[in-house]
């Protein structure tokens, strides 16, 4: 098993690794090896033992609770036999780590230069000007713009992608033999992910370090791995070269992971389609009458400053957005973080201030100042949020969480409401006998089912699902999406599906709208937008999505590792954006014409 297909001696070889927390064994008899310059991807869902394995290699298991047995050999030394002070010289020196959350993995009260410098000081013994020069060199290596200036900045002044570059600089600072990257790009936007992966690959070529890459995303594996190890419930269930695993997966679980990747993306049609100019706004939908029509919606947040909180400018979070959704139809709203997609959902249900715009639900224009109009809006439009842990009251039984909105809106009460609640729980695949249980007794996927049942209790016409499946594991995500599709057919409900996850969007959406800096830049039928994107940004977004098979590596355009500062959505007070004009690519497929 060790160091397959490489003649070199492995940098790291793990054999018979078993990890236990107290009396529970979480990793069983795991063996693998990584050679210099090679990337081993460890794939699995949460709880599969992949992160715990990395902590065991680093000797960072929780004290007094976690125990590891077997052997973890770095060169000729078995790391499991080292004491704490010997292990300290290994950590950050010979093996370093990159973590998932760039927002929380850096110390907020220390300058980034000091944080990178700390590793260099500990392991290379540099001080003063020499140390600073070494840190600057690392910053240049990871392409942080203006390193001389940025070295003295604090982490909060960096974007997520830039922070992850700081983490990479920290990890590479002492020329480690092995880098353990634990979901390093999971929290990043897809275009930033593509850049970060490109940077890692490039630096790996330069330094010849081995990388143990932990991920749940088979697309990322297809992009960068040489070898793959698939883990499930603490055991290795499949191991091989990336081509073997993708072309000929032996285990059904591996096959399901590969199948979860978006399939339309990456099959871009050649050439551009001649476009015809059109007047007006792209308000097409499927069916006879729209369930939701949004016209010229703008959301602006005031930015205040100065002695008396004077209005300095306005953040144009959403700008002149128009779209419609038909009965039983799903419109996907995609875009990167900060593009305004969630704000649109919030503005519709009056959780964000609308600067202008008209919103019509089921043919009735919503008058947000009229309590009756608002009440009917809150009955007809329901939300499902991303975090299934935060969106249920921890002290309210799930049954009463579902009954409560029915009572509030006078839809049903007493026995009738109870019967409907039990029926709904059954519809979303939960046992009605558990209605008296509290949310913490359920898993993440089950809680999302509860949230769906709660939304359906109102017999809504539209459900706004804001990243509703983004926090779930691949297998659970697929189940929830299938459930949503089934329920849509049964209840004839429409979805506004807000997500950054192209695989999910591709699976559930009939039409897709692409958001960029608060504006919709492209909207149309799913196959048109994903298969024949017309707008430059859509093309860029889609090309950043990881490939689905390692064979496509050579076919895709190389990712530039650049550092363009993001455009500012802050505008002076009274700024009037230029009017939008659209081009029609195909029936119902519109792109924004460059202004």
């Amino acid at each position, binding site marked *: 098993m060790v160091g397959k297909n490489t003649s070199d001696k492995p940098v790291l070889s793990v054999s018979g690794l078993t990890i236990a927390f107290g009396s529970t064994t979480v990793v069983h008899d795991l063996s693998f090896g990584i050679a210099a310059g090679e990337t081993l991807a460890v794939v699995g869902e949460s709880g599969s033992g992949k992160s715990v394995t990395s902590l065991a290699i*680093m000797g*960072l298991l929780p004290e007094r609770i976690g125990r590891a047995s077997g052997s973890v050999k770095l060169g000729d030394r078995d790391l499991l036999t080292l004491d*704490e002070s010997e292990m*300290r*010289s*290994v*950590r*950050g*020196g010979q093996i*370093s*780590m990159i*973590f998932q*959350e760039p927002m*929380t*993995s*850096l*110390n*907020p*009260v*220390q300058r980034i230069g000091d944080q990178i410098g*700390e*590793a260099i000081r*500990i*392991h290379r013994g540099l001080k003063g000007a020499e140390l600073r020069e070494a840190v600057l060199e690392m910053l240049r290596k990871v392409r942080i713009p203006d390193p001389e200036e940025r070295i003295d900045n*604090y982490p*909060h002044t960096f974007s997520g992608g830039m922070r992850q570059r700081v*983490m990479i600089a*920290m990890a590479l600072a002492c020329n480690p033999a092995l880098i353990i990257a634990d979901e390093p790009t999971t929290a990043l936007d897809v275009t930033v992910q593509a850049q970060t992966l490109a940077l890692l690959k490039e630096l790996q070529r330069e330094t010849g370090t081995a990388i143990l890459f932990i991920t749940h995303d088979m697309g990322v594996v297809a992009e960068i791995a040489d070898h793959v190890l698939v883990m499930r419930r603490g055991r290795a269930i499949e191991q091989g070269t990336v081509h073997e695993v993708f072309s000929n997966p032996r285990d059904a679980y591996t096959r399901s992971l590969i199948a979860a990747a978006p399939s339309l993306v990456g099959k871009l049609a050649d050439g551009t389609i001649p476009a015809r100019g059109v007047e007006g706004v792209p308000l097409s939908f499927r069916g006879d009458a729209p369930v939701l029509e949004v016209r010229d919606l703008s959301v602006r947040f005031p930015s205040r*400053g*100065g*002695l008396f909180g004077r209005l300095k400018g306005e953040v144009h979070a959403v700008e002149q957005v128009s779209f419609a959704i038909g009965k039983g139809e799903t419109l996907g709203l995609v875009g990167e973080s900060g593009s305004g997609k969630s704000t649109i959902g919030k503005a519709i249900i009056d959780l964000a201030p609308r600067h202008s715009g008209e919103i019509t639900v089921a043919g009735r224009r919503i008058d947000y100042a009229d309590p009756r109009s608002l009440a009917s809006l809150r009955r007809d439009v329901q939300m499902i949020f991303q975090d299934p842990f935060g969106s249920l009251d921890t002290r309210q039984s799930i049954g009463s969480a579902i009954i409560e909105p029915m009572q509030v809106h006078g839809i049903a009460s007493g026995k009738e409401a109870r019967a409907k609640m039990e029926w709904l729980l059954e519809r979303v695949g939960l046992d009605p006998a558990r209605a008296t249980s509290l949310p913490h007794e359920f898993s993440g996927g089950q809680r999302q089912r509860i949230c769906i049942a709660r939304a359906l209790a109102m017999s809504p016409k539209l459900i706004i699902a804001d990243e509703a499946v983004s926090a779930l594991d691949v297998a659970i995500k697929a189940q929830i999406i299938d459930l949503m599709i089934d329920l849509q057919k049964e209840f004839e409900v429409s979805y506004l599906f807000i997500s950054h996850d192209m695989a999910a969007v591709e699976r559930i959406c009939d039409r897709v709208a692409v958001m960029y800096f608060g504006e919709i830049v492209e909207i149309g039928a799913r196959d048109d937008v994903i298969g024949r994107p017309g707008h430059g940004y859509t093309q860029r977004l889609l090309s950043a999505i990881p490939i689905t098979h390692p064979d496509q590596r050579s076919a895709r355009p190389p990712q530039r590792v650049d550092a363009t500062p993001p455009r500012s959505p802050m505008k002076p007070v009274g700024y009037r954006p230029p009017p939008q004009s659209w081009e029609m690519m195909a029936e119902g497929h519109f792109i924004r014409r460059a202004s």
Partner: protein
Amino acid sequence: MVSFLARRLGFAVVTLFSVLTLVFLIVRILPGDPVLVILGDQASPASVIALRQRLGLDQPLLVQYGRFLLQAIQGDLGTSMISGRPVTEEILAVLPYTLELTIAALILGAALGIPAGVWAAVRRNRLPDYVLRLLSLLGLSLPAFVAAIILLMVFAIQFRWFPVISAGGADTLTERLRQMALPTLALALIMMAYITRVTRSAMLEVLSQDFVRTARAKGASASAVIWSHALGNCLIPITTVIGLYLGILIGNSVLTEIVFSRPGLGKLILTALSQRDYTLLQGMIVVYTLMVVVVNLLTDLTYGFLDPRVQYK
């Protein structure tokens, strides 16, 4: 930063103004005629009228109020009804005693409480943690004057290491420190209890953060992780608690000063209360308010030094 300071100073002025008004009104609503208090029940009507005129109490309320405000702005809080000396002078004479006691107690409390809290957090759910948690609970529930009396009985009366009465007559620094030791300790123990608890809980939260794991993954030693990475992120809650309890500390010093017969604001306010010295009383309330306002402002400014993310807008 400048506009933040300007705004906060503006708030401070409004606060002080409100307190001045409130104090002025309360003193006039309180039962008991100050003139009769000064002159006694047997005073002749003529001398009552004369004194009333001298104190300006015969003027309409608004005129009195205007005069009071005008003088207060100039730092003149009136003259004591009992001693006849200016209130400002009376307060300034004892203020240093209270300040030195409070600041010494604060420093001692922080110097003991922060390491104790860190230690308890690092040894979570082990013996040192249990002992420190118990002790700090004891410190919180023990009234200041009880601690003071126990200290006095043990160290001043039983062992005779420190003087029983801490008032004046200190010619040398050693003597002065000896006089301060017990009252400082009595207050510091309470401060320490608060700081230990908040440090412990803040440390526990910070130690589970991702960046602590990052620091360990770099190969940083346990002490570097705890003192440099973790503690640096605990200083904001600790500062908040210190700022909040500084007010309580000043309040506690009243009883401590009485137990140790130390001069200070506490003793002065007690005298003023028992003698119905209204002008002195209103002056002292103003001074207390001023101290709380200043402490709050200093706390806010300290945040900026401790956390680069804090912006003053």
